[in-house]
């Protein structure tokens, strides 16, 4: 058996990540994220303009519309990971777990990235960007205008497609949308800040006690509800609303499965890199990686279960409004992306994570976690990007195009920008407090974990 960790192995003031060690990385990611964000906002805002049917204007609007979708894809990718961090934090506190005390601070740091991500969502507040992404907003603005009764106006519009919006206008209207959008970030942002604050306060209490620990557990209860509501409706407002006629009751769970899986992959990567840099040596062992690997495995299966259920029920019931999502994603080459999710997002990680000994090998897990994150990007791509072709209406030789040539450049640039920004805030959180709650009464239980 390995050496028994005692309180002598835990530094009195906790382990702190040396800023000098990551200063360079943080600086670069901050510059990349910041510059990318500023250019994206300028491009999306000033370049967008209002759509015009004349040829040259339309070409420019195709490019802007295309980039608006790239931006949504990239931002939603990092949002799911930060949301997953919130989930693991609340779950760890709520379930009164002992095993993960030494990795809990990483969960809190990951979750606390969420409120900062609002700045990447700023472009979504401009009508210049909204007009490409969310068709219902354009319809609402065109049809309702200054009319006092939105429902009546939509119901008596000459375009029958808008009658469907009349039934949903209580939820899909710009005022409520804006209110919701701010509530998500303020609400969940506040709760993850609060729970993390309790945890950090315990590190520096003059009279060590469990007061903060119990407070964190207590407040994690309704935080979990806030998390569930935020994740579900954020997914609805940003992604499901890309096509307002489509609906799926599984969609929130589907996003949740992906975010829980991928934030766990990020946590494993963080743990491994911190250990390589010489931290967490005494408190995190291969047993922790084993448990986190098991959670990754569980959520790989859960993701497959939920995404298949969504597909299966829609495919079986064959209702016009519902099938559109999958029809679009199985047209032309999108079919290959859909199929790749089955085999590469589910089957391959499932088989790779099946054995217990591979989950304990950091080298293997680094590769696998990066792969899982890559497949998650493909998953989000598959949710967002197929809507781009029909939305920006590029027509070549009288044929509407599903795929816009060269648009992948924008996708990659947007992804690099947001991931760099995400990294910047994550590193900021990691350096702002001790790396693990060294005064938590169960830190030794966690350090001596055996499973």
């Amino acid at each position, binding site marked *: *058996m390995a050496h028994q960790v005692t309180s002598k192995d835990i530094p009195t003031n906790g382990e702190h990540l040396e800023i000098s060690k990551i200063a360079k990385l943080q600086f670069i990611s901050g510059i990349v994220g910041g510059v990318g964000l500023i250019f994206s906002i300028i491009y999306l805002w000033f370049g967008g303009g209002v759509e015009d049917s004349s040829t040259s204007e339309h070409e420019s609007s195709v490019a802007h519309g295309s980039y608006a979708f790239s931006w949504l894809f990239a931002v939603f990718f990092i949002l799911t990971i930060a949301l997953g961090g919130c989930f693991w934090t609340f779950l760890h506190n709520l379930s009164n777990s002992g095993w993960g005390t030494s990795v809990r601070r990483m969960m809190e740091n990951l979750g606390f990235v969420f409120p900062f991500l609002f700045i990447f969502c700023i472009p979504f507040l401009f009508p210049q960007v909204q007009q490409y992404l969310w068709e219902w907003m354009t319809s609402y603005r065109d049809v309702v205008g200054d009319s006092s009764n939105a429902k009546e106006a939509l119901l008596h519009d000459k375009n029958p497609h808008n009658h469907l919006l009349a039934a949903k206008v209580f939820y899909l209207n710009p005022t409520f949308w804006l209110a919701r959008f701010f509530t998500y970030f303020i609400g969940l942002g506040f709760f993850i800040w609060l729970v993390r604050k309790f945890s950090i306060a315990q590190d520096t209490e003059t009279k060590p006690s469990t007061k903060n620990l119990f407070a964190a557990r207590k407040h994690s209860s309704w935080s979990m509800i806030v998390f569930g509501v935020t994740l579900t409706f954020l997914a609805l407002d940003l992604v499901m609303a890309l096509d307002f006629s489509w609906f799926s009751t599984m969609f929130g769970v589907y996003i949740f499965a992906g975010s829980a899986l991928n934030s766990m992959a990020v946590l494993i990567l963080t743990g491994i890199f911190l250990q390589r840099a010489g931290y967490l040596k005494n408190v995190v062992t291969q047993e922790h990686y084993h448990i986190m690997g098991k959670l990754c495995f569980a959520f790989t299966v859960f993701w497959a279960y939920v995404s298949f259920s969504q597909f299966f029920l829609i495919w079986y019931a*064959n209702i016009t409004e519902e099938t559109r999502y999958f029809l679009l994603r199985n047209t032309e080459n999108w079919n290959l992306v859909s199929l790749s999710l089955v085999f590469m997002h589910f089957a391959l990680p499932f088989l790779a994570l099946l054995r217990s000994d591979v989950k304990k090998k950091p080298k293997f897990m680094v590769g696998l976690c990066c792969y899982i994150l890559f497949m998650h990007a493909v998953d989000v791509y598959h949710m967002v990007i197929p809507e781009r072709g029909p939305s920006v209406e590029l027509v070549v030789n009288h044929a509407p195009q599903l795929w816009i040539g060269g648009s992948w450049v924008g996708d990659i640039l947007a992804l690099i920008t947001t991931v760099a920004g995400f990294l910047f805030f994550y590193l900021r959180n990691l350096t702002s407090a001790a790396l693990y709650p060294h005064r938590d009464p169960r830190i030794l239980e966690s350090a001596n974990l055996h499973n």
Partner: protein
Amino acid sequence: MSTKVRRVYGYLAEFKNASQLYKAAEKVRDAGFKKWDCYSPYPIHGLDDAMGIKRSILPYFVFIGGLTGFLTAITLAYTTQVGLYPTIVQGKPANIFTTAAFFPVMFELTILFSGFTVFFGLLALMGLPRWNHPIFASKQFSRVTDDKFFIAIEARDSKFSAEATKALLGEIGGANIELVEDDSE
């Protein structure tokens, strides 16, 4: 009283606490015994390592069981729904693309067969159910459900010897060493 010959089951030694049992188990393991066991009122963490127990072969059985269930489901659904009597529902195809509709059946049968293999495989590997165990012949053994810890080394083990094994058990801290004889008919 009959004069029939009783079979020797093995030696039983009592230990005071879990840590003694743990240390003794390591020594018995190092002495090279294979057919022996530890008995304790509650599960002891890491005792399987101390006893040198290898990984069970049950997972391989379960894999084969699950695979059987999976293949059964495919065969059952495919031959009946596509081969023998194609059922056309809502204009859906009756060919390889129908497979999506069979997923729940495939999933459930995989789980069911794996579950059965776990249950029956575990019973078989443990040699259960059985009416009696020779070790119940020992009077002191009943305290294993209360406050005592035991190690029993079976006479079937190739390293077993009437004197040396007894001496070994005494050496490693065993008390009340008893030769247990099988009293079942």
